[in-house]
């Protein structure tokens, strides 16, 4: 039954978008928030129903979307464990963030537009995860990019936000170009882009096949853009210009994981392309450590979280590259819980401080914001990987897989984890411990957020705490039920015996926990005991610190090697060709005709004797000609 009406799932948020955008002048802000939340809650119920009723694959055919020549794309939804998982995450976390936004955005004059965009985002995200072929997936993919653009630039009057929005879209576009070419190539290689045709056909392809390698590399470029990996990651930190619920929903919990989802969905193809997988491992691991190192010195609460998102996505990429698709999806899920929680917590702090974002202007907030404090602590422990919080299980699973592949990967991954733990606790201590360092005005204003915001925090905290038990590892007697559940969807994954012995895994876990606890202790020493506060902007930074503080000058690098040359080309070269070369030729035609006209005009000077003179000579000339011939 539920399978039959599964196609209605994305329609609810679309309806919400239509109601909220066309009725934005009639509906009150609160009402619009309630409608928007409801339109996400209904799909959540549907998704739960699907979760309990579908264990294999169900394809829901709607109609033939386009069929022109070689293109034949049906509009179909695929309901299987992987898409159900994503649907649950998207609508579940999405619903909580919608509710939170009722409180957070309630005072904004354009709140209705905000809710309309959020609903539109959920619509496209559901399209993305439910689509049964790459083109529908791509439509959702572009659609969420649009919503991201509109929401980053939500406060469009600010030029800087405006530029951030454009940067996000354009960087994603570069990725999309790869994705699009990958889809086209796939269409010709497999004769179809439907999952149900491509994946079985891939079964008969040799591992290392060149076409499949190119296709997977192209698709990967798309994922690099959307999931903010090196070299296309610089848009995500800037994307924090958007309202905080947007950062939580789009730029942490859901949209940025679309790249991970897409690769996990194509697991069979990636398992046939060892080269691509190797590239993904390198990029993922590099991003994980690189972004984490930038996070160490950032002072904007949202920027720290943004870099941590980039870094965590790097771990997911690492897992994908190692062929541990279910581990990546597991980390997607737990990350959605704790990262959404962190951002919403940050939003709650900013709400209390009148939108202050600089952690140097915070401090000592644990008494005044008790709920935010507790929930933020849970999320911090989760992301740092302290047992039994959810992040421990998902991150450890990835690191164990890395160790099984090559112990040096584990070492590098562990360094990233140390960084993560340090910058998270640095953030945590600077915000909630010590003395308040903001203005006295802010201090008087500080208050805990209303229930409509704290309840979502509490729910997410419970999920961030318990989420790890979804895939309770075998060494603790668990059944790894999450991985088992996804099995029908992940044809490319190895579901065999454990690759590393249990003792080794336990040893790795124990050593990582001990190191992490030590890092937390050091952070406590530095930021609580000694009360160190990061230096302000005017302080000159030197050497490595300067490099990291300025995010390795990557933005400046891109600016001078891409943006400026392109502008130069456009401004100088192209306008020169048009104005001088082409118009020159066109005008010279005009000039030639004018010159001809001018010279002919001289003959018609109105002087009768001149005419007679010419006539006489012409007659003479004609006679001479006739006599000679």
């Amino acid at each position, binding site marked *: 039954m539920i399978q039959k009406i599964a196609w209605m799932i994305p329609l609810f948020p679309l309806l919400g978008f239509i109601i909220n955008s066309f009725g934005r002048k009639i509906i009150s802000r609160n009402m619009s928030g309630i409608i928007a939340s409801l339109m996400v809650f209904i799909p959540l119920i549907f998704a739960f129903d699907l979760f309990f009723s579908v264990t294999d694959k169900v394809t829901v055919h709607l109609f033939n979307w386009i069929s022109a*020549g070689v293109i034949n794309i049906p509009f179909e939804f695929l309901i299987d464990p992987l898409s159900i998982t994503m649907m649950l995450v998207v609508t579940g976390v999405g619903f909580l963030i919608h509710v939170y936004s009722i409180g957070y955005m309630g005072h904004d004059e354009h709140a209705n537009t905000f809710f309309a965009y959020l609903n539109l985002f959920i619509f496209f995200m559901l399209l993305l995860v439910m689509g049964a072929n790459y083109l529908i997936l791509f439509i959702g993919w572009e659609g969420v990019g649009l919503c991201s653009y509109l929401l980053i630039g939500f406060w469009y009057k600010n030029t800087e936000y405006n530029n951030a929005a454009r940067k996000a879209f354009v960087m994603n576009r570069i990725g999309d170009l790869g994705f*699009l070419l990958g889809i086209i190539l796939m269409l010709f290689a497999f004769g179809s882009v439907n999952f149900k045709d491509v994946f079985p056909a891939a079964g008969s392809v040799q591992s290392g096949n060149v076409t499949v390698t190119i296709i997977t590399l192209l698709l990967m470029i798309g994922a690099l853009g959307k999931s903010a990996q090196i070299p296309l990651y610089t848009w995500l930190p800037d994307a924090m210009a958007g309202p905080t619920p947007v950062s939580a929903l789009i730029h942490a919990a859901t949209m940025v994981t679309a790249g991970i989802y897409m690769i996990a969905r194509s697991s069979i193809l990636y398992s046939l392309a060892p080269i691509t997988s190797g590239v993904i491992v390198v990029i993922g691991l590099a991003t994980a450590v690189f972004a984490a190192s930038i996070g160490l010195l950032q002072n904007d609460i949202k920027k720290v979280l943004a870099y941590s998102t980039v870094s965590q996505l790097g771990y997911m990429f690492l897992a994908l590259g190692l062929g541990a698709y279910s581990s990546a999806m597991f980390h997607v899920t737990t990350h959605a819980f704790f990262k959404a929680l962190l951002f919403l917590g940050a939003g709650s702090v900013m709400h209390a401080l009148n939108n202050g974002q600089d952690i140097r202007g915070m401090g000592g907030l644990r008494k005044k914001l008790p709920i935010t404090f507790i929930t933020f602590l849970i999320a911090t422990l989760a992301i740092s990987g302290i047992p039994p919080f959810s992040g421990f299980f998902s991150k450890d699973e990835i690191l164990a897989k890395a160790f099984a592949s090559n112990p040096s990967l584990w070492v590098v991954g562990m360094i990233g984890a140390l960084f993560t733990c340090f910058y998270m606790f640095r953030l945590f201590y600077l915000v909630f411990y010590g003395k308040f360092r903001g203005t006295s005005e802010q201090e008087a204003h500080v208050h805990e957020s209303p229930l409509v915001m704290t309840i979502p925090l509490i729910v997410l905290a419970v999920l961030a705490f318990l989420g790890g038990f979804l895939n309770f590892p075998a060494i603790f007697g668990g059944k790894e039920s999450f991985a088992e559940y996804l099995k029908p969807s992940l044809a490319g994954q190895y579901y065999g015996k454990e690759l590393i012995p249990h003792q080794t895994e336990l040893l790795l876990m124990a050593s990582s926990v001990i190191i992490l606890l030590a890092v937390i202790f050091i952070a406590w020493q530095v930021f609580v005991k000694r009360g160190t506060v990061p230096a302000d902007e005017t302080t000159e930074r030197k050497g490595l610190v300067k490099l990291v503080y300025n995010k390795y000058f990557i933005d400046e690098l891109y600016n001078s090697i891409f943006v400026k040359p392109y502008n130069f080309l456009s401004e100088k070269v192209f306008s020169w060709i048009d104005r001088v070369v082409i118009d020159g030729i066109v005008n010279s035609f005009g000039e030639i005709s004018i010159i001809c006209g001018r010279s002919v005009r001289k003959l018609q000077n109105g002087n009768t004797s001149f005419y007679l003179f010419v006539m006489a000579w012409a007659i003479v000339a004609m006679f001479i000609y006739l006599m000679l011939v």
Partner: protein
Amino acid sequence: MSILTLLIICPLLTSVLLLLPKSDKGTKSIALIGSIIQIALTGYITFLYQAIRSAGDKSQMLFESNIVWFSTLHINFHTGVDGISLVMMLLTGFVVLAGVLVSWNIKNQVKEFFFFIMLLSTGAFGFFMSLDLFMLFFFLEIAVVPKYMLIGIWGSGKKENNAMKLALMLMAGSAMVFLGIVGIYFASGYFGPHNTWDILELSKIHLPAEIQRVIYVLTFVGFGVFTAMFPFHTWAPDGHSSAPTAASMFLAGISMKLGGYGCLRVATYLMPTAAKELSWIFIILASIAIVYGAFATLMQKDLKYMNAYSSVSHCGFVVLGIAMLTKTAFAGAVMQMVSHGLMTALFFAAIGMIYDRTHTRMSDQLGGMLKQLPFIGTAFIIAGLCSLGLPGFSGFVSEMTIFTGSWEKAGLFYRVATILACASIVITAVYILRAVGKAIWGTVTNKTYLMLTDATWSERAATILLVVGIVIIGVAPFLFIRLIEPDVQYIINRIIL
């Protein structure tokens, strides 16, 4: 006399009738009623067309009528439509109505203005339904002359100069087309049963390759000037910048499509052998146009120049699709023509509405328009999103179809062209979002802009009309493809042969 003839009579009659009333309001009303009748008529014909097709009529052209016009020269008034000409006529109906609506506030020489608009409409409808090359050329010329007047009289800036440039370049294009079709006419006497201008008869004759080559290049380049094919594109930016809003909409929305349609229907369809041999020339030119147009757009500050250069880039897709000679690419090219026609009309309409209020088109002097003019600002953003090929709007499906159709051609040369074309989607995003960021988002810099009023009823109606068209194709492309697919097959059959 078929129902199609009504579509020529209707705009022609409107253009005469609107001269009668004394008040400007009366003139405008007649123009509006006339264009509503046109669009209703095209809609009705589409409906009939589909009904006849689904009843199983497989003939190539429907609603055919063939009346001898000038028997010594074998010129016949031969009209008929297939799916391709039908969608182009639908496009014409949409753009003309929208153009009349946005010109509602025009003040000087109202009668003459709408007279020329209706004359253009007559030319376009006639062109798309002509099955006789001479008539086709005749209507092409009808569509050119009024543009000179529209720009020269109601334009702005260096209007005389730009109007002249446009008219001369288009006339040069027409001259090449004329040479080409005269060549076809005489060649058909030597190599076929008798001299003819008739497209359907000509499509059954195979002229020798050397003749085809000459005619193919002449007609393709000639029509190519109309589509602003590189390097014959410079009339477009200058012409648009001086043209009044409705004329820009018409110029980019329909006039450039006359060229695309001609390239497909005359050059490619009638000269298949030469097309196979020589289409690589136009693939190169189209690829240059796509990338070059996009780059040239990057730095344009004048919004009209921006859209004109971006049209050069987008019409490059049309030429690319036609020159790739695959069924998918043809379908994409036709779709792109309609999509670009609607989208660019919307763009020019929005720019015109902003210009009417602020008296500037410079993106750096604007800013904050979304706050002051939410409706117009949104229209501009929608046009932009369609232009950068966002799914859900028509631009995506048509570009996607062209890319796929181009990839169908194996060979490094075609692959490089396709990848170049694809790469333009990144640059397009850059310039569109720059314009949106500067002109539409941001804060109001000029105090006088705070007093602006949003779109009037007629402007709203025009916008909604065009947006509906864009969204229908974008969301339900199968409706569109169903119309044109069998007819694209006819053209591709000639190529495969």
